[in-house]
Protein backbone atom coordinates (compact mmCIF):
# COMPACT_ATOMS: atom_id res chain seq x y z
CA UNK A 1 0.00 0.00 0.00
CA UNK A 2 2.91 2.29 0.72
CA UNK A 3 3.68 2.77 -2.96
CA UNK A 4 0.13 3.77 -3.84
CA UNK A 5 0.54 7.03 -1.93
CA UNK A 6 3.21 8.16 -4.32
CA UNK A 7 1.60 6.79 -7.45
CA UNK A 8 -0.16 10.08 -8.14
CA UNK A 9 2.83 12.28 -7.39
CA UNK A 10 3.90 11.72 -10.98
CA UNK A 11 2.38 14.20 -13.45
CA UNK A 12 1.74 11.37 -15.93
CA UNK A 13 -0.54 9.45 -13.56
CA UNK A 14 -2.04 12.51 -11.88
CA UNK A 15 -3.13 14.11 -15.16
CA UNK A 16 -5.92 11.60 -15.99
CA UNK A 17 -6.97 11.36 -12.32
CA UNK A 18 -7.35 15.14 -12.16
CA UNK A 19 -9.35 15.03 -15.38
CA UNK A 20 -11.80 12.57 -13.83
CA UNK A 21 -12.07 14.50 -10.56
CA UNK A 22 -12.75 17.90 -12.12
CA UNK A 23 -16.24 16.87 -13.31
CA UNK A 24 -17.36 15.81 -9.85
CA UNK A 25 -15.97 18.81 -8.05
CA UNK A 26 -17.36 21.21 -10.66
CA UNK A 27 -20.80 19.59 -10.48
CA UNK A 28 -20.74 19.67 -6.67
CA UNK A 29 -19.66 23.32 -6.75
CA UNK A 30 -22.49 24.25 -9.12
CA UNK A 31 -25.15 22.40 -7.10
CA UNK A 32 -23.95 23.80 -3.79
CA UNK A 33 -23.72 27.33 -5.20
CA UNK A 34 -27.32 27.12 -6.46
CA UNK A 35 -28.48 25.73 -3.12
CA UNK A 36 -26.50 28.32 -1.19
CA UNK A 37 -27.81 31.20 -3.29
CA UNK A 38 -31.40 30.00 -2.92
CA UNK A 39 -30.95 29.84 0.85
CA UNK A 40 -29.14 33.16 0.90
CA UNK A 41 -31.29 35.19 -1.46
CA UNK A 42 -34.74 33.61 -1.09
CA UNK A 43 -35.10 31.62 2.12
CA UNK A 44 -33.06 33.75 4.52
CA UNK A 45 -35.04 36.67 5.95
CA UNK A 46 -34.07 40.30 5.61
CA UNK A 47 -31.76 41.43 8.40
CA UNK A 48 -33.26 43.77 10.98
CA UNK A 49 -30.37 46.25 11.07
CA UNK A 50 -28.60 45.82 7.71
CA UNK A 51 -31.70 45.08 5.56
CA UNK A 52 -30.79 43.23 2.36
CA UNK A 53 -27.22 44.49 2.18
CA UNK A 54 -26.08 41.74 4.54
CA UNK A 55 -26.69 39.17 1.78
CA UNK A 56 -23.24 39.99 0.41
CA UNK A 57 -22.04 37.85 3.31
CA UNK A 58 -22.86 34.73 1.29
CA UNK A 59 -20.12 35.59 -1.22
CA UNK A 60 -17.87 37.70 0.97
CA UNK A 61 -17.18 35.36 3.87
CA UNK A 62 -16.54 32.20 1.77
CA UNK A 63 -14.16 34.20 -0.45
CA UNK A 64 -12.32 35.59 2.56
CA UNK A 65 -12.01 32.13 4.13
CA UNK A 66 -10.75 30.64 0.87
CA UNK A 67 -8.24 33.45 0.35
CA UNK A 68 -6.49 32.67 3.63
CA UNK A 69 -6.91 28.91 3.44
CA UNK A 70 -5.54 28.72 -0.11
CA UNK A 71 -2.42 30.63 0.93
CA UNK A 72 -1.71 28.03 3.61
CA UNK A 73 -2.37 25.19 1.14
CA UNK A 74 -0.07 26.86 -1.38
CA UNK A 75 2.65 27.18 1.27
CA UNK A 76 2.18 23.50 2.20
CA UNK A 77 2.64 22.45 -1.44
CA UNK A 78 5.65 24.76 -1.63
CA UNK A 79 7.17 23.10 1.43
CA UNK A 80 6.58 19.70 -0.18
CA UNK A 81 8.16 20.95 -3.40
CA UNK A 82 11.28 22.13 -1.57
CA UNK A 83 11.45 19.17 0.78
CA UNK A 84 10.85 16.32 -1.65
CA UNK A 85 11.91 18.14 -4.82
CA UNK A 86 8.73 16.96 -6.55
CA UNK A 87 7.58 18.72 -9.68
CA UNK A 88 3.87 18.14 -9.17
CA UNK A 89 3.86 19.83 -5.74
CA UNK A 90 5.34 22.97 -7.26
CA UNK A 91 2.83 22.81 -10.10
CA UNK A 92 0.02 22.62 -7.55
CA UNK A 93 1.41 25.67 -5.76
CA UNK A 94 1.60 27.47 -9.10
CA UNK A 95 -1.99 26.51 -9.91
CA UNK A 96 -3.31 27.71 -6.55
CA UNK A 97 -1.84 31.24 -6.68
CA UNK A 98 -4.24 32.79 -9.25
CA UNK A 99 -7.33 31.32 -7.55
CA UNK A 100 -6.09 32.56 -4.20
CA UNK A 101 -5.50 36.02 -5.60
CA UNK A 102 -8.98 36.00 -7.18
CA UNK A 103 -10.60 35.00 -3.87
CA UNK A 104 -8.70 37.74 -2.05
CA UNK A 105 -9.80 40.27 -4.64
CA UNK A 106 -13.45 39.12 -4.41
CA UNK A 107 -13.31 39.37 -0.61
CA UNK A 108 -11.98 42.93 -0.82
CA UNK A 109 -14.36 43.99 -3.56
CA UNK A 110 -17.50 42.59 -1.96
CA UNK A 111 -16.28 43.94 1.36
CA UNK A 112 -16.18 47.43 -0.12
CA UNK A 113 -19.72 47.07 -1.45
CA UNK A 114 -20.88 45.76 1.87
CA UNK A 115 -19.15 48.48 3.78
CA UNK A 116 -20.74 51.26 1.76
CA UNK A 117 -24.38 50.75 2.88
CA UNK A 118 -23.61 49.44 6.37
CA UNK A 119 -20.68 51.58 7.55
CA UNK A 120 -21.06 54.39 5.04
CA UNK A 121 -17.61 53.90 3.54
CA UNK A 122 -16.03 51.71 0.88
CA UNK A 123 -12.78 51.37 2.74
CA UNK A 124 -11.75 51.58 6.37
CA UNK A 125 -8.29 50.77 7.66
CA UNK A 126 -9.68 47.89 9.62
CA UNK A 127 -7.26 45.13 10.62
CA UNK A 128 -8.97 42.44 8.57
CA UNK A 129 -9.27 44.57 5.46
CA UNK A 130 -5.70 45.79 5.69
CA UNK A 131 -4.23 42.34 6.18
CA UNK A 132 -6.42 41.01 3.36
CA UNK A 133 -5.00 43.75 1.12
CA UNK A 134 -1.47 42.75 2.08
CA UNK A 135 -2.38 39.12 1.41
CA UNK A 136 -3.39 40.19 -2.10
CA UNK A 137 0.03 41.85 -2.51
CA UNK A 138 1.70 38.61 -1.38
CA UNK A 139 -0.25 36.57 -3.95
CA UNK A 140 0.52 39.07 -6.70
CA UNK A 141 4.20 39.07 -5.69
CA UNK A 142 4.37 35.30 -6.06
CA UNK A 143 2.63 35.42 -9.46
CA UNK A 144 4.92 38.25 -10.61
CA UNK A 145 8.04 36.40 -9.45
CA UNK A 146 6.90 33.29 -11.33
CA UNK A 147 6.38 35.33 -14.51
CA UNK A 148 9.77 37.02 -14.22
CA UNK A 149 11.72 33.74 -14.15
CA UNK A 150 12.00 31.93 -17.46
CA UNK A 151 13.30 28.64 -16.15
CA UNK A 152 10.38 26.71 -14.58
CA UNK A 153 12.40 24.80 -12.01
CA UNK A 154 14.05 27.93 -10.67
CA UNK A 155 10.65 29.64 -10.61
CA UNK A 156 9.24 26.69 -8.64
CA UNK A 157 11.87 26.92 -5.94
CA UNK A 158 12.01 30.71 -5.77
CA UNK A 159 8.22 30.94 -5.43
CA UNK A 160 8.31 28.20 -2.79
CA UNK A 161 10.83 30.15 -0.69
CA UNK A 162 8.74 33.30 -1.08
CA UNK A 163 5.49 31.51 -0.19
CA UNK A 164 7.05 30.01 2.93
CA UNK A 165 8.50 33.37 3.97
CA UNK A 166 5.06 34.83 3.47
CA UNK A 167 3.25 32.20 5.50
CA UNK A 168 5.49 32.90 8.49
CA UNK A 169 4.75 36.58 8.06
CA UNK A 170 0.98 36.45 7.58
CA UNK A 171 0.12 35.99 11.27
CA UNK A 172 2.69 38.63 12.26
CA UNK A 173 1.23 41.03 9.70
CA UNK A 174 -2.28 40.32 10.96
CA UNK A 175 -1.43 40.99 14.59
CA UNK A 176 0.66 44.05 13.82
CA UNK A 177 -2.14 45.56 11.78
CA UNK A 178 -4.71 44.53 14.38
CA UNK A 179 -2.83 46.23 17.14
CA UNK A 180 -2.09 49.29 15.04
CA UNK A 181 -5.77 49.50 14.23
CA UNK A 182 -6.98 49.24 17.80
CA UNK A 183 -4.56 51.99 18.79
CA UNK A 184 -5.64 54.35 16.05
CA UNK A 185 -9.18 53.67 15.06
CA UNK A 186 -10.97 53.33 18.31
CA UNK A 187 -14.50 52.11 17.78
CA UNK A 188 -15.51 54.27 14.81
CA UNK A 189 -16.06 51.15 12.73
CA UNK A 190 -16.72 47.81 14.34
CA UNK A 191 -16.48 44.81 12.06
CA UNK A 192 -17.29 42.31 14.75
CA UNK A 193 -20.37 40.61 13.47
CA UNK A 194 -23.35 40.13 15.75
CA UNK A 195 -22.90 36.72 17.34
CA UNK A 196 -26.62 36.05 17.17
CA UNK A 197 -26.64 35.14 13.51
CA UNK A 198 -29.80 33.36 12.45
CA UNK A 199 -29.32 29.65 11.85
CA UNK A 200 -30.61 29.89 8.29
CA UNK A 201 -28.07 32.62 7.45
CA UNK A 202 -25.27 30.52 8.89
CA UNK A 203 -26.47 27.52 6.89
CA UNK A 204 -26.47 29.55 3.66
CA UNK A 205 -22.98 30.80 4.40
CA UNK A 206 -21.63 27.32 5.10
CA UNK A 207 -23.19 25.91 1.94
CA UNK A 208 -21.63 28.73 -0.06
CA UNK A 209 -18.29 28.10 1.65
CA UNK A 210 -18.46 24.46 0.57
CA UNK A 211 -19.32 25.61 -2.95
CA UNK A 212 -16.26 27.88 -2.91
CA UNK A 213 -14.10 24.94 -1.78
CA UNK A 214 -15.28 22.68 -4.56
CA UNK A 215 -15.03 25.48 -7.11
CA UNK A 216 -11.45 26.17 -6.03
CA UNK A 217 -10.53 22.47 -6.21
CA UNK A 218 -12.08 22.08 -9.68
CA UNK A 219 -10.43 25.21 -11.07
CA UNK A 220 -7.05 24.40 -9.54
CA UNK A 221 -7.13 20.88 -10.94
CA UNK A 222 -8.05 22.21 -14.37
CA UNK A 223 -5.22 24.72 -14.17
CA UNK A 224 -2.69 22.17 -12.97
CA UNK A 225 -3.60 19.96 -15.94
CA UNK A 226 -2.77 22.82 -18.30
CA UNK A 227 0.49 23.45 -16.44
CA UNK A 228 1.38 19.76 -16.68
CA UNK A 229 0.79 19.64 -20.44
CA UNK A 230 2.70 22.87 -20.92
CA UNK A 231 5.71 21.79 -18.87
CA UNK A 232 5.82 18.13 -19.92
CA UNK A 233 5.22 18.82 -23.60
CA UNK A 234 8.46 17.02 -24.44
CA UNK A 235 7.29 13.79 -22.80
CA UNK A 236 5.90 11.01 -24.99
CA UNK A 237 2.83 10.44 -22.79
CA UNK A 238 1.74 14.03 -23.40
CA UNK A 239 2.17 13.66 -27.17
CA UNK A 240 -0.05 10.57 -27.14
CA UNK A 241 -2.91 12.32 -25.26
CA UNK A 242 -6.12 12.50 -27.27
CA UNK A 243 -6.64 16.22 -26.57
CA UNK A 244 -3.07 17.03 -27.57
CA UNK A 245 -3.16 15.03 -30.81
CA UNK A 246 -6.43 16.64 -31.92
CA UNK A 247 -5.41 20.12 -30.90
Amino acid at each position, binding site marked *: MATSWFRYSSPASFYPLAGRMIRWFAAAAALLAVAGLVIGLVVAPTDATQSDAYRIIFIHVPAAWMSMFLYVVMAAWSAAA*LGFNTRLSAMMAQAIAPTGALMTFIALWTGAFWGRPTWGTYWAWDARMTSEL*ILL*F*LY*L*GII*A*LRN*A*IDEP*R*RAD*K*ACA*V*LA*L*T*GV*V*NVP*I*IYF*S*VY*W*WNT*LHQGSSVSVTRAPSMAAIMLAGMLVMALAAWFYAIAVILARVRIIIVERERGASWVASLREVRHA
Partner: protein
Amino acid sequence: MAAALAIAPDRTDTAWPALRWAVARDVKLALRSRAELGVQLLFYVVVASLFPLATTPERSTLTLIGPGVLWVAALLASLLSLPRLFAADHADGTLEQIVLSPYPLVALVGGKIVAHWITTGLPLVIIAPLVGLQYALDEETLSVLAFALLIGTPILSLLGAIGAALTLGLRSSGSLLALLILPLYVPVLVFGAGAVEAARTGVGASAHLSLLGAGLLIACVGAPFAAAAAVRIALD
Protein backbone atom coordinates in the same frame (compact mmCIF):
# COMPACT_ATOMS: atom_id res chain seq x y z
CA MET B 1 38.07 35.50 -3.02
CA ALA B 2 36.93 32.70 -0.77
CA ALA B 3 40.41 31.25 -0.93
CA ALA B 4 41.58 34.26 1.06
CA LEU B 5 40.10 32.62 4.13
CA ALA B 6 42.99 31.27 6.16
CA ILE B 7 41.12 28.41 7.79
CA ALA B 8 41.43 24.72 7.16
CA PRO B 9 38.29 23.64 5.25
CA ASP B 10 37.90 20.44 7.25
CA ARG B 11 37.35 22.29 10.48
CA THR B 12 33.72 22.07 11.55
CA ASP B 13 33.73 25.32 13.52
CA THR B 14 34.00 27.56 10.48
CA ALA B 15 30.78 29.54 10.76
CA TRP B 16 32.13 32.46 12.81
CA PRO B 17 35.31 32.99 10.81
CA ALA B 18 33.26 32.83 7.60
CA LEU B 19 30.80 35.37 8.97
CA ARG B 20 33.58 37.71 10.08
CA TRP B 21 35.32 37.38 6.73
CA ALA B 22 32.12 38.21 4.81
CA VAL B 23 31.39 41.22 7.02
CA ALA B 24 34.93 42.59 6.68
CA ARG B 25 35.02 42.06 2.92
CA ASP B 26 31.66 43.66 2.18
CA VAL B 27 32.24 46.61 4.50
CA LYS B 28 35.61 47.20 2.86
CA LEU B 29 34.08 47.05 -0.62
CA ALA B 30 31.29 49.43 0.41
CA LEU B 31 33.73 51.91 1.92
CA ARG B 32 35.62 51.96 -1.38
CA SER B 33 32.54 53.35 -3.10
CA ARG B 34 31.60 55.93 -0.49
CA ALA B 35 29.81 58.11 -3.05
CA GLU B 36 27.20 55.39 -3.50
CA LEU B 37 26.60 55.21 0.23
CA GLY B 38 26.30 58.98 0.37
CA VAL B 39 23.70 58.97 -2.38
CA GLN B 40 21.55 56.53 -0.42
CA LEU B 41 21.73 58.69 2.65
CA LEU B 42 20.85 61.74 0.57
CA PHE B 43 17.89 59.85 -0.85
CA TYR B 44 16.59 59.42 2.69
CA VAL B 45 17.03 63.10 3.50
CA VAL B 46 15.45 64.26 0.23
CA VAL B 47 12.40 61.97 0.50
CA ALA B 48 11.84 62.99 4.13
CA SER B 49 12.13 66.66 3.15
CA LEU B 50 9.46 66.41 0.45
CA PHE B 51 6.54 65.64 2.74
CA PRO B 52 6.29 69.03 4.45
CA LEU B 53 6.28 70.62 0.98
CA ALA B 54 3.47 68.30 -0.10
CA THR B 55 1.39 68.91 3.03
CA THR B 56 1.93 71.86 5.32
CA PRO B 57 4.75 73.48 7.30
CA GLU B 58 2.47 73.68 10.33
CA ARG B 59 4.24 72.18 13.33
CA SER B 60 1.30 70.28 14.79
CA THR B 61 0.68 68.44 11.50
CA LEU B 62 4.36 67.73 11.00
CA THR B 63 4.79 66.12 14.41
CA LEU B 64 1.75 64.01 13.59
CA ILE B 65 3.04 62.66 10.27
CA GLY B 66 6.75 62.78 11.17
CA PRO B 67 7.18 59.28 12.66
CA GLY B 68 5.40 57.67 9.71
CA VAL B 69 7.28 59.69 7.09
CA LEU B 70 10.67 58.97 8.66
CA TRP B 71 9.91 55.25 8.74
CA VAL B 72 8.47 55.00 5.23
CA ALA B 73 11.55 56.83 3.94
CA ALA B 74 13.73 54.31 5.81
CA LEU B 75 11.83 51.43 4.16
CA LEU B 76 12.33 52.97 0.72
CA ALA B 77 16.00 53.70 1.33
CA SER B 78 16.51 50.09 2.44
CA LEU B 79 14.65 48.84 -0.63
CA LEU B 80 16.79 51.00 -2.90
CA SER B 81 20.02 49.62 -1.44
CA LEU B 82 19.03 45.94 -1.57
CA PRO B 83 20.23 45.16 -5.12
CA ARG B 84 23.78 46.01 -3.95
CA LEU B 85 23.69 43.07 -1.58
CA PHE B 86 24.24 40.35 -4.19
CA ALA B 87 24.06 41.90 -7.67
CA ALA B 88 27.71 42.91 -8.10
CA ASP B 89 29.00 39.61 -6.73
CA HIS B 90 26.56 37.80 -8.98
CA ALA B 91 27.68 39.73 -12.05
CA ASP B 92 31.41 39.04 -11.64
CA GLY B 93 31.04 35.41 -10.53
CA THR B 94 32.15 35.94 -6.92
CA LEU B 95 28.81 34.76 -5.62
CA GLU B 96 29.28 31.44 -7.39
CA GLN B 97 32.65 31.01 -5.69
CA ILE B 98 31.08 31.88 -2.35
CA VAL B 99 28.44 29.20 -2.84
CA LEU B 100 31.05 26.65 -3.91
CA SER B 101 33.35 27.39 -0.98
CA PRO B 102 33.47 24.77 1.80
CA TYR B 103 32.32 27.29 4.39
CA PRO B 104 28.67 27.39 5.50
CA LEU B 105 26.75 29.50 3.02
CA VAL B 106 24.38 30.66 5.76
CA ALA B 107 27.30 32.26 7.61
CA LEU B 108 28.65 33.92 4.46
CA VAL B 109 25.22 35.26 3.48
CA GLY B 110 24.63 36.30 7.08
CA GLY B 111 27.91 38.21 7.02
CA LYS B 112 26.86 39.98 3.84
CA ILE B 113 23.58 40.95 5.51
CA VAL B 114 25.40 42.32 8.57
CA ALA B 115 27.71 44.32 6.31
CA HIS B 116 24.71 45.62 4.36
CA TRP B 117 23.15 46.84 7.58
CA ILE B 118 26.37 48.46 8.80
CA THR B 119 26.76 50.38 5.54
CA THR B 120 23.11 51.29 4.85
CA GLY B 121 21.05 50.83 8.03
CA LEU B 122 23.41 52.24 10.62
CA PRO B 123 23.90 55.59 8.80
CA LEU B 124 20.10 55.98 8.78
CA VAL B 125 20.00 55.44 12.54
CA ILE B 126 22.50 58.27 12.93
CA ILE B 127 20.98 60.72 10.50
CA ALA B 128 17.27 60.12 11.19
CA PRO B 129 17.19 62.20 14.42
CA LEU B 130 18.60 65.15 12.48
CA VAL B 131 15.92 64.81 9.84
CA GLY B 132 13.41 64.38 12.66
CA LEU B 133 14.23 67.91 13.82
CA GLN B 134 12.55 69.14 10.64
CA TYR B 135 9.37 67.53 11.91
CA ALA B 136 9.47 69.37 15.22
CA LEU B 137 9.88 66.18 17.23
CA ASP B 138 11.24 66.64 20.75
CA GLU B 139 14.48 65.11 22.06
CA GLU B 140 12.93 62.12 23.77
CA THR B 141 10.92 61.18 20.68
CA LEU B 142 14.04 61.52 18.55
CA SER B 143 16.00 59.19 20.79
CA VAL B 144 13.19 56.62 20.59
CA LEU B 145 13.22 57.07 16.80
CA ALA B 146 16.94 56.33 16.67
CA PHE B 147 16.54 53.32 18.96
CA ALA B 148 13.59 51.94 17.00
CA LEU B 149 15.57 52.30 13.77
CA LEU B 150 18.52 50.59 15.45
CA ILE B 151 16.34 47.51 16.11
CA GLY B 152 14.19 47.80 13.00
CA THR B 153 16.64 48.41 10.17
CA PRO B 154 18.45 45.06 10.68
CA ILE B 155 15.08 43.35 10.11
CA LEU B 156 14.78 45.27 6.83
CA SER B 157 18.21 44.04 5.73
CA LEU B 158 17.44 40.47 6.80
CA LEU B 159 14.06 40.23 5.05
CA GLY B 160 15.31 42.21 2.10
CA ALA B 161 18.18 39.77 1.55
CA ILE B 162 15.61 37.04 0.76
CA GLY B 163 13.99 39.22 -1.88
CA ALA B 164 17.32 40.41 -3.28
CA ALA B 165 18.47 36.81 -3.72
CA LEU B 166 15.18 35.68 -5.24
CA THR B 167 15.24 38.42 -7.88
CA LEU B 168 18.94 38.02 -8.81
CA GLY B 169 19.46 38.53 -12.53
CA LEU B 170 15.77 38.91 -13.40
CA ARG B 171 14.16 41.41 -15.75
CA SER B 172 12.87 44.52 -13.98
CA SER B 173 14.16 43.11 -10.72
CA GLY B 174 13.93 46.50 -8.99
CA SER B 175 10.18 46.96 -9.13
CA LEU B 176 9.65 43.23 -8.60
CA LEU B 177 11.73 43.46 -5.45
CA ALA B 178 9.47 46.24 -4.17
CA LEU B 179 6.37 44.12 -4.76
CA LEU B 180 7.90 41.11 -3.00
CA ILE B 181 9.46 42.84 -0.03
CA LEU B 182 7.37 45.87 0.93
CA PRO B 183 4.38 43.76 2.11
CA LEU B 184 6.76 41.80 4.34
CA TYR B 185 8.07 45.07 5.80
CA VAL B 186 4.62 46.02 7.12
CA PRO B 187 5.08 44.77 10.71
CA VAL B 188 8.41 46.63 11.00
CA LEU B 189 6.72 49.80 9.79
CA VAL B 190 3.78 49.39 12.17
CA PHE B 191 5.86 48.74 15.28
CA GLY B 192 8.67 51.12 14.33
CA ALA B 193 6.47 54.09 13.59
CA GLY B 194 4.20 53.01 16.45
CA ALA B 195 7.10 53.24 18.91
CA VAL B 196 7.91 56.80 17.84
CA GLU B 197 4.24 57.76 17.91
CA ALA B 198 3.83 56.24 21.38
CA ALA B 199 6.85 58.19 22.63
CA ARG B 200 5.49 61.40 21.11
CA THR B 201 2.12 61.03 22.79
CA GLY B 202 3.69 59.95 26.07
CA VAL B 203 2.19 56.45 26.13
CA GLY B 204 5.59 54.78 26.39
CA ALA B 205 7.34 52.98 23.56
CA SER B 206 8.52 49.88 25.41
CA ALA B 207 5.75 47.58 24.10
CA HIS B 208 6.44 48.49 20.47
CA LEU B 209 10.19 48.25 20.97
CA SER B 210 9.83 44.81 22.61
CA LEU B 211 7.81 43.55 19.67
CA LEU B 212 10.34 45.02 17.26
CA GLY B 213 13.08 43.22 19.19
CA ALA B 214 11.12 39.96 19.02
CA GLY B 215 10.79 40.46 15.28
CA LEU B 216 14.53 40.99 15.01
CA LEU B 217 15.20 37.71 16.84
CA ILE B 218 12.79 35.78 14.57
CA ALA B 219 14.33 37.37 11.47
CA CYS B 220 17.86 36.58 12.70
CA VAL B 221 16.96 32.92 13.13
CA GLY B 222 15.02 32.43 9.92
CA ALA B 223 16.02 34.95 7.27
CA PRO B 224 19.70 33.97 6.70
CA PHE B 225 18.64 30.39 5.95
CA ALA B 226 15.92 31.51 3.53
CA ALA B 227 18.33 33.96 1.88
CA ALA B 228 21.01 31.29 1.55
CA ALA B 229 18.47 28.91 0.01
CA ALA B 230 17.40 31.66 -2.38
CA VAL B 231 21.03 32.32 -3.40
CA ARG B 232 21.47 28.62 -4.18
CA ILE B 233 18.26 28.63 -6.23
CA ALA B 234 19.37 31.70 -8.17
CA LEU B 235 22.68 30.05 -9.10
CA ASP B 236 21.27 26.62 -9.95
